[in-house]
C-alpha cells in the first residue's frame, strides 16, 4: 500500500465567508508568480489599508508592491514577518474581522516620483 501524501491543514475551514475561503489555495505562493485569484487577496489588502493601487491595476501577479503589503500586514497584526503567504498569514486573513481599515493606506510611490 502506498503512503498517502502529506497534507497541509489550516484551522480556518469553517471560519470564513465565500470570498475569503478561497485564500487557502495561495499558501506558499511567492513573488514573481502569477496565480489566478491573487487579485482577490490584493483587494483584501487594499480594503484594509495595506495596499494602494488603482482598481484597474489590480491583477493576479505577485509583485513587489504586494510583497511589501504582506510585510506590513504581518507586522501590524503581530505575525511572523516573512513577506510570504505562509500558513499563519493566510489563516489570519480568513478569520472574520472588523470592517474598519487597520492602517492608513501607504503613499503611492508613483505619485512621489512625479
Amino acid at each position, binding site marked *: 500500500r502506498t503512503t498517502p501524501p502529506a497534507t497541509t491543514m489550516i484551522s480556518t475551514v469553517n471560519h470564513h465567508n465565500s470570498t475569503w475561503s478561497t485564500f487557502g489555495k495561495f499558501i506558499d505562493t511567492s513573488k514573481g508568480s502569477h496565480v489566478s485569484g491573487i487579485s482577490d487577496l490584493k483587494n483584501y489588502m487594499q480594503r484594509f489599508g495595506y495596499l494602494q493601487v488603482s482598481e484597474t491595476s489590480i491583477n493576479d501577479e505577485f509583485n513587489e508592491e504586494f510583497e511589501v503589503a504582506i510585510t506590513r500586514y504581518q507586522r501590524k*497584526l503581530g505575525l511572523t514577518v516573512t513577506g510570504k503567504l505562509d500558513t499563519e498569514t493566510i489563516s489570519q486573513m480568513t478569520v472574520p474581522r*472588523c470592517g474598519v481599515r487597520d492602517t492608513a493606506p501607504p503613499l503611492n510611490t508613483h505619485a512621489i516620483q512625479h
Partner: protein
Amino acid sequence: YKYFKGKPRWSRAMPTTLTYAFSPNNIISSVNLSDIKVIFRRAFSRWSSVIPVNFTEAEDYGFSDIKIGFYNGDHDDGEPFDGVLGVLAHGFSPESGRLHLDAAETWAVDFEREKSAVAIDLESVAIHEIGHVLGLAHSSVKESVMYPSLKPREKKTDLKVDDIEGIQQLYGSNPNFNIEALAQSDTSSNRG
C-alpha cells in the same frame, strides 16, 4: 494601541455622558431586543469603568450621540457588509457616533443557547466597535479587544492594559478605576 488620523475624540468636557440608541428600522429578529440592550449596556459599562464617560440609552434615535443598527449589504455609508462572516461590523471615529453590525451574522448572546459553528459573540463585537466610536483604531496586541479579528464562538470581553492605556490617553481615567486591581485580575485569569 492606535488612534485614527488626527486623534479625534468626543470633545465635550469631562466627565460627560453620551447617549446611545438603537435604530428602530434596522434591528434583527434572531435575538430579542431586550437581550441586545442588556449586552450593549454591559459593553458600554466596560468602557465607562475606566474613563470619565457615562453612557445612557436614549429613546430618541435621531438625537442620540451613538446610533446603533444592524444592516445588510450596501447600507449607504460606503462600507457594504458581505454576508455571513467576513466583515462583522464597523464603527466610525468621533464624533460620528455610527455603529453598524452585519445583520447577516449569527449573533449570539449566549453560546449555550446558540450552537451554530459560525456564531459570533455580540458583546465582544460591541465592545470593539464602541472602542472605535470613542476614538481607538486597531491594535497590534492580539489579546486586546481592539485587535481587528474575532473567530466564531470566541469571546473577548475584558479590556486589556493596551485598551485601557489607549482610551485613558484620550479621556483621562475614571477616578474609581484601579489599575492594580486589573493587573491582579489578569494574573488570576492566567493562573486559571
